[in-house]
């Protein structure tokens, strides 16, 4: 059995990749995927702890997160399509009308 710290390390690396992508990428879809990456990093931590401590609540929590992520993906992708239709770009630096 793989010890817990490895899972947590992988989880942390995944989360950091997500944050980094969230901060530096300009394509909306990439940013969106980075958010998914962060979510999955957290999910990994949940299931790792659940397996370690033999409690089911962590795994149940992961299901909730996945459901919310799925819903978010549906809405988020719809928004992205709408943005693309009006702005003809997916570059967030050009989607900047809401400023002073």
């Amino acid at each position, binding site marked *: 059995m793989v010890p817990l710290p490895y899972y947590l390390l992988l989880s942390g690396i995944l989360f950091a990749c997500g944050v980094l992508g969230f901060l530096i990428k300009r394509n909306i879809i990439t940013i969106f995927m980075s958010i998914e990456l962060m979510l999955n990093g957290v999910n990994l931590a949940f299931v790792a702890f659940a397996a370690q401590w033999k409690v089911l609540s962590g795994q149940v929590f992961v299901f909730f997160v996945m459901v919310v992520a799925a819903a978010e993906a549906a809405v988020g992708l719809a928004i992205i399509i709408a943005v693309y239709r009006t702005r003809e770009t997916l570059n967030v630096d050009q989607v900047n*009308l809401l400023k002073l």
Partner: protein
Amino acid sequence: MTANLHLWIIPILPLIGALINGLAGRRFSRQLISAIAVSFSGAAFGWALYVASRFSSLSLPHIEYVARWIQISGFRSDFAFYLDQLSLVMLLVVTGVGFLIHVYSIGYMWEEGGFYRFFSYLNLFMFFMLTLVLANNYLLMFIGWEGVGLASYLLIGFWFTKDSAASAGKKAFIVNRIGDFGFLIGLFLLIKHFGSLTFDQVFPAIAKMPAETAGAGLLTSIGLLFMVGACGKSAQVPLYVWLPDAMEGPTPVSALIHAATMVTAGVYMVSRSHVIFERAPDALTVVAIIGVLTALFAATIGVAQTDIKKVLAYSTVSQLGYMFLACGVAAFSAGIFHLMTHAFFKGLLFLAAGSVIHALGGEQDMRRMGGLRTKIPYTFWTMTAATFAIAGIPPLAGFFSKDEILWRAYQASWAYWLIGVFTAFLTSFYMFRLWFLTFFGEYRGAVGQGLEHGAGHGPHDSPGHHSGAATLPPNAHGNGHIHESPWIMLGPLVVLAVLSVVGGWIGIPGSMGGGNHFDKFLGPVFRATAPAISGEPAQAGETAPPENQTEGQEPQTGHGTELTFTGISVAAALLGLFLAWLFYKRRPELPEQIATGLGGFYDAVVNKYYVDELYAMLFVKPLIDGSTKILWRDVDQGVIDSAVNDSADAARHVSDNFRHMQSGNLRSYAGWVTTGAAVVIAYMIWMGVR
């Protein structure tokens, strides 16, 4: 309990007329507007006549309660009406003269713009004046008092596009404010010391108090403060300055408000408060001195005026002075008698002057009149009646009322009498001067030019305002022909002329074989509450026990003396007539020479003793400067505005710095979110470690 006369109907009727015309009159035809205005004021007159017909069966004073108004812990003021001989006289004068002037106005204002507005204001004035006259407490009276001031303001500034009219309206309103300030403080004193403003509660309470012969006290203060109010409303020295300017209003307004009714409100108020004044000899003396000074002062100014309405305005101020003189020597019924006859002849003088102005297409300068006797005969004859009446030629109305005042003034002090007679001479002189200048000699207006002037401007005294004048039908005013006024204007003139002739006969004094019915009629109002002071000649007439009345009046001085004084005042009037004839008919070059002879004094009189300039220098200019420089620039702009503006500037400055967070760059938002989350997590870890 006597019959309910529904007195509230009298003021309400003109109010309804005012509301109908004021709210919907814009869409009405002129015929309908005038029908509404005249019928409602006529109905008020009719109801007043009905009240008068039932008057003898009433137990006086007759008080009618209508509705509760204000009740605050002990102090109570209601909508209630008070009818006694005094208010009945005022009621009949106001509704009667008011009705006639409404009729006259139809003809006079027919060509003017704002026809509905004019009649709405006129009816509104009637409402407030009747409220003032009928009120049974000082508070309701004050409502009427302020209301007539409002109506006066609206009507003086009727041609509001003309700057002088607008300023005259403001001047009247502001000068009246000064007087009202005194009146209000007097009312506060009454509330403080008697807990009420209702006549039938205050007067009996005061009647129990002794006269303040030893020195000034509460009643003297109240009396003086009331006199300040009366000075403002009734245009007495030193607050008379607004009345001559008020002639900017249409002439019927000058007749109704600024001659016959509103300006006499002060006399009415002082007479109504006679219980207070009778117990405050010092206040009475002040009233008499103000009255006699005003009479003389205004009469001298009137001598040198050239505008026909200005002469009449100063004459009004002067005659009001007579009324206050009468009140000041405690001859209240003589004052009210003069008030009534003055309403007839001065209303008539203004209406006739309006008719002259109308005939000449807007000309008001007497130097450009003359020879109108044959051209406008009805106006001439009615004006003649009024002129003789005001000059005090027997047996016209003004003779009896003025003579009564002079006689009573003599009983108080010969100085009052002397100034009064001299003023009577001046009155006669300036009135006959007006009469001769207007109706006799040659017509001095340049025929073509003068009428060109009339056509180019408004039909009346609204030069330069009335843009619609150019589109008048060709047979309207100022069409190159001096014309008599229509019958709708002449009718009221004739009625008032008859009243000016016979109106005085109800008050023929005993010395001339009359019964002095007017004095006896008003007697119960003033005698019932007079304090018992022995050895006061001014009070003797008022306090005369009933048996003296049957013998005639003032038996202690005798009829012979009274007739002598009457003869002197008639002689003064005739002297005025003679001098006016000499100066303005026989030898027209004389006034010029005398004016040059008098030099600076004549200039001072022509310029109204520079009183307006003096007030401007003493009060108006410091006020304007203080307001502009200190209150406006320093306080308002410097403190209040800058406090608001600076705090707004500070807020904007701070926000300006913070708004850079809202860059619109999504990734910078992401950075803020991440940083925030990191900070929160770090904090939680740090807390967990502890």
